[in-house]
């Protein structure tokens, strides 16, 4: 019996102790309110608020940094990169990795542009060893140009540096008018360029489609008659200030026209750039004088 009383006493005192402990804990929460005014007077709440704000700022910055990793390139970065990506993907078709003589096109085209008053134009030229593609300006970042020119085409036509510069300049005007970019741009692509894809995957299908569109424009479709007419007229206006250049351009078109009519390798040229013969017609001054 005594033992039972002892056990009950011990259990009772233990539960009392626990209850007291809980009360003191509760008390500490409650007591915080009671000392709020003291804390306020000591600027501790203000300090705590500042710390909380600093922490929130840090978290926000970390979140932004993490999200920033998922940015897709914007317009000023997208096109040169993608054109290079296309060139890399088509390296075996275009055959641009080959040894060739130095045509010094960097200097000749630079002088050509400066002579016509086209300044601060950054360009890169890639020579390809295939007749499948003759000359082209690929989409590039603002004020930048990525040109492709075929060495077999240059050799077959025996083009001079000035004639090559004229071809590149024609391509440059096409690039400035944005024909290529307009032809390959889709809503899907606009959804990708310059957007953030945090929490999503990059839509690789969009890029695959863009690759296909590049192929289509470069190898099959090319440019339409209206676009060619606009470019030829623009060339006419610019080159008329230097009649020697204008004559050279006209003669070069004649050369290209003869080639595409006689050489089966270049029959597609008329499909891509319709057509040297028409261009000559558009350039030829009208005979009637009123």
């Amino acid at each position, binding site marked *: 019996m005594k033992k039972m009383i002892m056990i009950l006493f011990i259990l009772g005192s233990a539960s009392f102790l626990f209850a007291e402990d809980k009360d003191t804990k509760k008390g500490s929460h409650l007591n915080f309110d009671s000392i709020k005014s003291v804390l306020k007077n000591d600027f501790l709440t203000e300090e705590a608020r500042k710390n909380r704000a600093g922490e929130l700022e840090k978290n926000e910055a970390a979140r932004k940094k993490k999200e920033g990793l998922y*940015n897709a*390139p914007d317009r000023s970065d997208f096109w040169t*990169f993608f054109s290079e990506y296309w060139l890399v993907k088509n390296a075996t078709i275009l055959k641009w*990795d080959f040894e060739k003589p130095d*045509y010094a*096109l960097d200097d000749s*085209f630079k002088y050509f542009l400066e002579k016509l008053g086209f300044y601060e134009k950054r360009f*890169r030229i890639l020579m390809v060893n295939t007749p499948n593609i003759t000359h082209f300006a690929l989409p590039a970042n603002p004020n930048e140009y990525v040109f492709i020119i075929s060495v077999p085409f240059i050799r077959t036509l025996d083009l001079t540096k000035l004639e090559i510069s004229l071809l590149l300049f024609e391509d440059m005007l096409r690039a400035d008018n944005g024909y290529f970019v307009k032809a390959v741009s889709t809503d899907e692509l606009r959804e990708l360029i310059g957007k953030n894809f945090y929490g999503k995957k990059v839509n690789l299908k969009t890029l695959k489609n863009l690759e296909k569109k590049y192929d289509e424009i470069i190898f099959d479709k090319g440019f339409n008659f209206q676009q060619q007419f606009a470019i030829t007229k623009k060339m006419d206006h610019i080159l008329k200030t230097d009649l020697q250049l204008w004559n050279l351009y006209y003669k070069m078109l004649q050369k290209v026209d003869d080639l595409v009519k006689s050489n089966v390798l270049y029959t597609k040229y008329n499909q891509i750039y319709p057509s040297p013969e028409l261009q000559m017609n558009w350039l030829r001054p009208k005979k009637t004088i009123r």
Partner: protein
Amino acid sequence: MIKRWLMIFALLGPLPLRAAPKKEILRVAYFRPIFGHVHRNPSRYSSSLTTISCGHPIKVLKLVPAKGRPVTVFNKVWHFVKVGPYEGYIDGKYLKEKKPNCFQDRYPKYFDALELDLTELYYWGRLYDQYVFGKSRVK
């Protein structure tokens, strides 16, 4: 017997005179284009020792011969460099003093998503060997 020894000395004698020039680090530069190559010889068509990407640190070397002045550049274009275990040549226009703001660093997840394979990295480097660069300027 003496003749044989004389022959051996005559053959081995000149070897120490041809001391190879010492290679010293001139500076550290960073690679500028997206991808590129360290070439075996100072030519854009020379074979590639290794492919490097934008922002890669490169030790530009100078050669200090036993006699004469140190040689820093082999010609005006090509720089003699060390990248990892490889010693080769890189076109000077692709080197930058400060770390460049690379495309890969600006858009890392987009770039990773393209999943370029080794052949494509190699070709991307070759592209910068093959390009002809230029810029028109105001006179």
